């Protein structure tokens, strides 16, 4: 009885102070916990939030989106904040979730209050919740894939060769087999690690390295077809790899990728997407490269049609990327990003090249790269100075059924340790990323109608001139977005209840984008008089309106 009362009081406490708990405890949350926190935030801030279930994974978990802002949030510039795009990057989920919590907690501050009236935030902390299950499973194992059963190794049996925790320590790590046919050697930078032997330096390998497990299907390969699945971050259409590993049957084939893509497509007001995963263009901005001249030229004399793919960031968007990257490094204090990894079908490049929005991504936390040292060795060096917890599982000899009579050892860097800060650093990581996102939001596009001029040429003949100015630091749409049909154009419209004729100028003008601080003049010649309104804009960059009377 006592216990029941206690837990009742506790749950009441959680109910009333749910948000407090959400901010103070920086820890890694299971998918269910994340959804509960989102629910609590929604309950605590009903006027500022909208919580939607945008999809359900193959194992039945809800994928949720929390929309944040005051007033009519879908008709003003929006920012998407997305975590959980890669199952190894657990911290990205906490950054997105922590961002939502902090933003709402601070919504009483003038600064944030004002921001929430001008920009809307769409937070999806956990885009692919099944992929993170390895973080919380026993044994703990890195995994990338959702729970859609697939034949990963294309041998026409499904999920037949998963990993096993051979030494029973609760982690799926590596196993090494001492064997003259192996191609790995002990890493001289850190004797606990192995690296590929460099034949050009006369090195000869003496270890075989696999992930921990047995060859369940006796096909000579180890752990090549575990449960699942498709990698969310390889299931998007930009540079999608047909028949790629964990890529799915086609781009956006999965429930998770489709749910997130549909949510984004439905929100025409989103101008920028921030995602937290392996791709990084905030530590190191994208540089404009030469555009590939990849065209399709049929034989001369046939019907010609050119189609050009864009595979490098466009110049104006690259300037914006450099600006954002500078801010990111300044606010987080991070240095030496390991640089951009291009994966086929990744989310962040899709958000730029196909969805047409500004797209920024970062792991949110990383170990500074050290020259001449492998990332793993640099990490172990950093960990010895900064992380108290054990991040390394010492090599331990085991009997392995597939290698009778051979020395087999299990060990290596703990799963997830390389990609995610330890819990005691998580709060700081969330805070600095939060600061950055708030600063980025302040750069939003914002339209204003300026310098209205009405000239009366004759009775009932007026010339109207007005300038439309973008006072934001973001353009009204990315340069690439200009070509994308899912990015709306600026619409300028002149209206009146009184009877009038336009002698020059259009009633509705669909206009091109405006860069930062750019303005464009519009003019009309009106036959008539009365009260008029000019409106300009689009949901992606906001609207402005100006009214006047001509007699």
């Amino acid at each position, binding site marked *: 009885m006592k216990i029941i009362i206690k837990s009742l009081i506790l749950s009441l406490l959680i109910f009333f102070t749910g948000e407090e708990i959400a901010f103070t405890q920086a820890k890694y949350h299971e998918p269910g916990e994340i959804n509960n926190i989102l629910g609590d935030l929604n309950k605590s801030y009903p006027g500022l939030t909208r919580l939607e279930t945008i999809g359900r994974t193959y194992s039945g978990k809800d994928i949720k989106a929390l929309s944040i802002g005051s007033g009519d949030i879908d008709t003003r510039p929006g920012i998407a904040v997305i975590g959980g795009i890669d199952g190894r990057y657990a911290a990205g989920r906490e950054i997105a979730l922590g961002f939502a919590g902090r933003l709402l907690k601070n919504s009483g501050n003038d600064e944030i209050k004002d921001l929430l009236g001008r920009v809307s935030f769409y937070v999806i902390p956990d885009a692919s919740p099944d992929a993170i299950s390895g973080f919380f499973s026993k044994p703990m194992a890195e995994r990338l894939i959702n729970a859609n059963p697939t034949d990963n190794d294309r041998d*026409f049996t499904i999920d037949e060769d998963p990993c096993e925790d051979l030494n029973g320590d609760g982690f799926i790590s590596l196993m090494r087999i001492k064997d003259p046919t192996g191609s790995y050697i002990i890493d001289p930078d850190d004797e606990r690690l192995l690296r590929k032997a460099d034949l050009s330096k006369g090195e000869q390998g003496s270890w075989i390295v696999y992930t921990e497990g047995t060859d369940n299907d006796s096909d000579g390969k180890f752990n090549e077809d575990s449960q699942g699945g498709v990698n969310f971050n390889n299931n998007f*259409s930009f540079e999608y790899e047909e028949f790629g590993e964990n890529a799915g049957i086609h781009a*956006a084939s999965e429930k998770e990728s489709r749910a997130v893509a*549909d949510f984004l497509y439905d929100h025409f007001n989103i101008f920028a997407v921030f995602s937290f995963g392996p791709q990084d263009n905030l530590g190191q901005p994208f540089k404009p490269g030469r555009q590939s001249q990849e065209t399709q030229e049929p034989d001369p004399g*046939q*019907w010609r049609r050119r189609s050009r793919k864009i595979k490098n960031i466009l110049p104006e968007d690259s300037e914006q990327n450099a600006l954002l990257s500078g801010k990111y490094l300044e606010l987080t204090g991070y240095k030496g990003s390991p640089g951009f990894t291009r994966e086929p079908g990744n989310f962040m490049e899709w958000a730029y090249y196909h969805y047409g929005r500004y797209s920024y991504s970062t792991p949110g936390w990383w170990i500074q790269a050290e020259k001449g040292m492998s990332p793993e060795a640099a990490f172990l060096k950093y960990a010895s100075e900064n992380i108290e917890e054990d991040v390394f599982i010492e090599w331990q000899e085991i009997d392995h059924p597939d290698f009778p009579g051979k020395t087999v050892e299990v060990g290596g860097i703990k799963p997830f340790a390389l990609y995610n800060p330890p819990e005691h650093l998580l709060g700081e990581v969330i805070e600095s990323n939060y600061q950055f996102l708030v600063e980025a939001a302040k750069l939003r596009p914002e339209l204003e109608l300026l310098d209205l001029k009405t000239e009366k040429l004759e009775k009932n003949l007026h010339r109207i001139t007005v300038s439309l100015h973008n006072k934001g630091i973001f353009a009204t749409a990315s340069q690439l977005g200009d070509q994308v049909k899912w990015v709306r154009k600026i619409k300028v419209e002149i209206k009146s209840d009184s009877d009038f004729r336009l002698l020059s100028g259009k*009633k509705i003008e669909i206009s091109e984008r405006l860069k930062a601080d750019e303005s464009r003049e519009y003019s009309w010649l009106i036959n008539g008089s009365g009260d008029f309104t000019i409106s300009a804009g*689009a949901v992606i960059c906001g609207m402005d309106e100006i009214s006047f009377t001509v007699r």
Partner: protein
Amino acid sequence: MQRSIIIILSFLMTISLQAQKDERFFKAAGTPVNPKVSASWNKYYTYSGIKDLCERLVTAYPDLVKMESAGKSYEGRDIIALTVTNHKNQDPDHKPGYYIDGNIHSNEIQGTEMALYAAWYLAEMYDENDFIRELLDDKVFYIIPTINPDARENFMHEANTGSSPRSGMVPRDDDRDGLVDEDGFDDINGDGIISMMRRKNPYGEYKADPSDPRHMIRVEPGEKGEYEMLGYEGIDNDGDGEVNEDRQGSYDPNRDWGYNWEPDYVQRGADKYPFSFPENQAVRDFGIKHKNIAGAQSYHNSGGMVLRGPSIENGGSEVYSREDERVINAIGEMGETIIPGYRFLTIWKDMYTVYGGEVDWWYGFMGTFVYSNELWTSHLMFHDDSRDSYKFDKLLLFEDAFIPWEEYDHPVYGKVEIGGFDKNFGRIHPGFLLESDAHRNTAFCFYHAYQTPRLVVRDIKVKDMQGSLKQVTATIANLRMMPTHSGQNIKYKIDPPDYIYLDGGEVVASMIVLDEDNNLCEEQEHNPQRIEIQNIPGNSSVKVRWIVKGGTKYTVRVESVKGGYTSGTN
């Protein structure tokens, strides 16, 4: 009393309907003389007409034709799929499959009639013709007459040109102004057809053609014009200065397939991502459910072409293997013979680049040999290159396809004249040519379907060996042109290899016999009872061998996804 008379009457009627001999008719070669399911091939079927015909086929031929819904369209219509085969002799999914669809572009309606004709012809001729009987005994036909039923209905029942909608019916914002489908055509003269508008103008650039005044031609430099052309019937509905710029849909369902997909700015007509639309999703799922589909046809119009992939240049994985090239060209070239006036062409090279097209999905993802016929060519009008539509309409259609120019009041342009060709002319067949072209295109499909693999087990030889062991050797032959696995199929392991089992004894070892004369064999250590063959090419054979303990009567069973299941016994 009355009721029993009706029963007797209807009984008598049934008998007369089922009678194979009818005194009124004399059989024309190659056509069922007195079909159980009456159908005429000089008109087009609406959705209810399609459904009715399919249902009548199922009722008349329950052992040959089965009907199912492959899924729902955007507006909730069933995507009707027929499975036509001898359902009695073998599991249809264990026979090589041939797939036909039509009408992916909604205005390109006659693909549906071609597909229906094939289903009808197969069912009606099964008892009459040895070739058709063999075809339905050995193969299975999956026929989806229309994979865009919503917009087919729109094309027929709403005001359209001969080229609209082309799209499906999901609303889309084409001009990026935040509104969907807000500025479509306007049927000014209210005749259900969108034709052309012209206005008298002494400074216009057009005049009536002296040889046929219905025809508007451009004036020569220095010559005085009589008319200006104002485009298709329409009004600027949304006041943005553009006319008809945001019509219903206006995406392209044939840029929506999950192979080599690219977005709209690279490939006009693409939508959000591959398989954005429920109709194509239904076909995708249908295909994945029927991996035995070895050959396919996706009908379009027009131009008189037998098209093959790939649809993009240097596509990488979609470059066909040399062996596949030979097969695809041999069958495609036969198409030029079977359908005179049609040319055999490669999509990207001879026409234009298509990203995300259905043809590349069938070959690329499914490993299926596929063609897309562009139905109807103006060559069929006079069997020459004159291609004079006005003359054809006058001499053969008696001006039935032309809407005479007539004056109307346009709310913006004032007095205009509206006229031009009907939407049923130009891209779709005139009635009297429909059956003939349906038959030819169907014959091409049948030729292609016939060339899907036909596997047989031959020459099972049993030899006693030392100890109590026996050696069982068998030949598996493919009697047709197509391999069990295309190059793409082998490269990406789309289907499992061909499995050859030995039943009737305890298998202790097995091998593929590479060269019997010189005793060259390759042992298969893993699972010896089931020998795995990567591919059995067309018109060739493989030899396999088992070492067996016990048994005297052996059965060799073959399981090939696209080559069918078969077996043989010594």
